[in-house]
């Protein structure tokens, strides 16, 4: 029995060893702490520097630990002064910003005009490799601190001047009346001195001036935030803190929410939406967020830009049954698009219920006619490219293609074209290598129609992936920027939007909803226009 016996021993030893480790590692640091909200999180892609964070996971934390000059109202999206006392301009080009007095960072350092100017200069200087540096591109002197070629010739932006402890001035390259709306964005956050002096310490445990302060940060695992004692703003936390738990997959977080190991989950997988209401006993909400999804045409390719193609592009847009797709594939967590912006802007900031008109309305007969009149799909076959590595784009791309195929009466006229990684996908787009339409997603930085137009469609715009160029559109943007009256400026932007829609540069598909589910332990869960939970409002039942 020697063999069998030793096998038994080995198995026994393994079991004992496993058991021992199990007991040893029993310190349950993730169990519920009274008054603390446990929320889902993912590993941020970049270090938690405000000007270096361009995705929602890092944004979630920055939102909690920084209070910027402006703050977007979670309900209306309106940009209100937060750390700013006032932001004034006479000519829409020179701005005077007064910072509220007596503000402090969580480590006790005062928040001054210098805190903002230093932070912005740091964010703009190209050698600091901050990914949001282009946000400072409108400030005078950006071409010196971040020249497209070669080394920077200046360390600071010449357009920024500190007047006194609580006042500084900003000079822009050109008139831009809506510029102050941007100042609620994280890239414009103030930074404490320790950010520059003890950078490693900052990265290990970021310090800000917002409603929460970081208590501990276990990279890749979790972050514990507690109310910032030095915070004096309106939105004081209604709970004793937030525990952000990193999840590898949204289904895992959802399972944990159902099992009571998680309190707030703002990333409910689309295929669970149908069950979410019953699983969560009604503790669930879904509302439009500032995310717009579209299919963009490569207008730099002659076959998509020649005469008559406007009709084909419009026909393709009309061939898509947005209502059916948002209902069946997304269970209503997308809202069919009627313009190029997002409902969260409201009428005041440029959202429109009808500007897209019949282009965005499903009409198979008319669509088929238009596509035929325009000369048909180039080559008779088209693909829609998407990155296959995340967000299950496959489902909607297949649905859009099926919708088009049913209209043109050809099973294989349109097929999806998955690209392995997001990086490869973006590289093909930025290098202008796309020969066929591709998916486009735009998550707003600030709730203003201008953010949905200038970067995407202005000649040479930073994210003008279609390489669209239209002098009339550019002229309207310029006029709107110089217009002091916000309402008139918004109207001018809307006219510009109409130009893009008439040319069907891209097919507006739908607005993405923010979703959230929560446990019975918490109440007052809302999500803001950026689809993030408003953590300060959440109350924990005792």
């Amino acid at each position, binding site marked *: 029995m020697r063999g069998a016996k030793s096998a038994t021993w080995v198995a026994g030893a393994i079991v004992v060893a496993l058991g021992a480790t199990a007991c040893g590692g029993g310190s349950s640091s993730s169990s519920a702490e009274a008054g603390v909200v446990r929320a889902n999180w993912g590993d941020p892609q970049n270090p938690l520097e405000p000007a270096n964070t361009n995705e929602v996971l890092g944004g979630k934390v920055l939102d909690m630990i920084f209070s910027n000059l402006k703050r977007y109202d979670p309900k209306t999206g309106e940009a209100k002064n937060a750390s700013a006392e006032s932001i004034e301009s006479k000519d829409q080009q020179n701005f005077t910003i007064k910072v509220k007095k007596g503000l402090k960072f969580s480590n006790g350092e005062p928040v001054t005009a210098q805190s903002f100017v230093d932070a912005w200069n740091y964010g703009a200087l190209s050698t600091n490799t901050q990914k949001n540096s282009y946000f400072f591109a409108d400030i005078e002197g950006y071409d010196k601190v971040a020249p497209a070629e070669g080394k920077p010739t200046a360390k600071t932006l010449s357009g920024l001047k500190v007047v006194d402890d609580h006042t500084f001035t900003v000079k822009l390259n050109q008139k831009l009346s809506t510029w102050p709306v941007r100042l609620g964005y994280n890239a414009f956050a103030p930074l404490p001195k320790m950010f520059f002096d003890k950078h490693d310490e900052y990265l290990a445990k970021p310090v800000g001036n917002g409603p929460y302060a970081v208590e501990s940060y276990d990279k890749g695992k979790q972050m514990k935030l507690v109310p910032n004692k030095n915070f004096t703003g309106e939105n004081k936390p209604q709970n004793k803190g937030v525990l952000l738990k990193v999840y590898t997959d949204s289904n895992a977080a959802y399972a944990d929410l159902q099992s009571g190991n998680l309190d707030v989950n703002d990333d409910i997988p689309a295929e669970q939406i149908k069950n979410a209401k019953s699983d969560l006993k009604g503790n669930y909400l879904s509302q439009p967020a500032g995310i717009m999804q579209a299919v963009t045409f490569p207008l730099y390719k002659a076959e998509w830009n020649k005469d008559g193609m406007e009709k084909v592009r419009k026909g393709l847009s009309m061939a898509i049954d947005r209502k*059916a797709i948002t209902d069946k594939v997304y269970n209503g967590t997308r809202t069919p698009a009627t313009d190029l912006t997002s409902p969260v802007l409201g009428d005041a900031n440029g959202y429109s219920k009808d500007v897209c008109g019949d282009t965005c309305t499903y009409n198979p007969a008319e669509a088929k006619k238009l596509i035929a009149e325009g000369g048909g799909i180039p080559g008779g076959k088209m693909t829609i490219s998407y990155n296959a590595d995340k967000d299950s784009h496959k*489902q909607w791309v297949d649905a859009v293609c*099926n919708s088009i195929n049913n209209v043109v009466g050809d099973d294989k006229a349109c*097929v999806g074209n998955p*690209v392995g990684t997001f990086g490869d996908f973006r590289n093909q787009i930025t290098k202008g290598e796309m020969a066929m339409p591709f998916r486009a997603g735009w998550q707003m930085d600030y709730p203003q129609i201008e953010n949905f137009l200038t970067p995407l469609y202005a000649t040479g715009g930073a994210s003008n992936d279609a390489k669209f160029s239209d002098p009339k559109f550019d002229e309207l943007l310029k006029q709107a920027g110089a217009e002091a009256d916000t309402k008139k400026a918004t109207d001018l932007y809307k006219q510009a939007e109409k130009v893009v829609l008439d040319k069907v540069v891209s097919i507006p598909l739908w607005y993405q909803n923010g979703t959230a589910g929560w446990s019975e332990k918490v109440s007052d869960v809302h999500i803001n226009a950026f689809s993030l939970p408003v953590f300060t409002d959440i109350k924990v039942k005792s």
Partner: protein
Amino acid sequence: MPEMTEPVAAAAPQGAAGTDPQPGPANGPDKQAKPRSLWGDAWRDLRRNPIFYISAVLILFLIVISLWPSLLTSTSPYACDLAHSKQGPSAGHPFGFNTQGCDVYARTVYGARASVTVGICTTVLAAVIGCLFGGLAGFFGGWWDSLLSRIGDIFFGIPILLGGIVFLSVIRGGSVFTVVLLMAILGWPQIARIARSAVITAKQQDYVQAARALGAGTPRMLLRHIAPNALAPVIVVATIALGTYISLEATLSFLGVGLKPPTVSWGIDISSAATEIRNAPHMLLYPAGALSLTVLAFIMLGDAVRDALDPKLR
């Protein structure tokens, strides 16, 4: 590099490998036509085994629907209408509809081609490379073993997902051919290790040592004496691998680096059905069931072939 000791005692040949000759089958590896061979015996045995016939019929059926899917369905796998999304079975649509509102029955029938091709081609390719490398490494030992085994180790280190993404993005792959190539390149070292160990074990069986002592040449030794006895573990691993290759294609699709549309495959359908399991289990049941049936057919075939090759069973 394992070196074998000389045999303790050169016993008389055991198991009648190649002792009383008869004409081998046309694909018999031994070109000097002997009147009766082990392979001939095996073939005869196989023809008497009912399991062989069941599996052969199943495999034949799979091959036929792979070639002519329209024999079994007149519905197009591409005719999809969201109005039917996730509907269960109904008249004319026995398997129901998937998320896109496509007919699951038609997609299961049409999916056979890509899936069966991926399964069979990958297995054959990986087994041929694996047996060649593993067999030679095990048989010759020494430097051969070091070189061939270490080459295998290098490939074993590559994560399949990295390989998949590289294939999909650099080679702009996504066709059945590239997926087969990728999985075979990353899959052969496993079969090579198994083949090597089997050859090492078989090599020092008494009858092999005896054959060597009687002056049998290397190719003859390998094909006549070692191969039949070393094949069993390789067949077992290869038949299971065939199934795992088909479902690995599903995993690659799940991670977004498998076959590209408009190819229809069980893998693609299984991967898109997986997350809908609570809402529409029928979407998963049928393609996964078809996959099971295929694996079953090949495992049974493998068992039958293995039994036929085992001289101790005669």
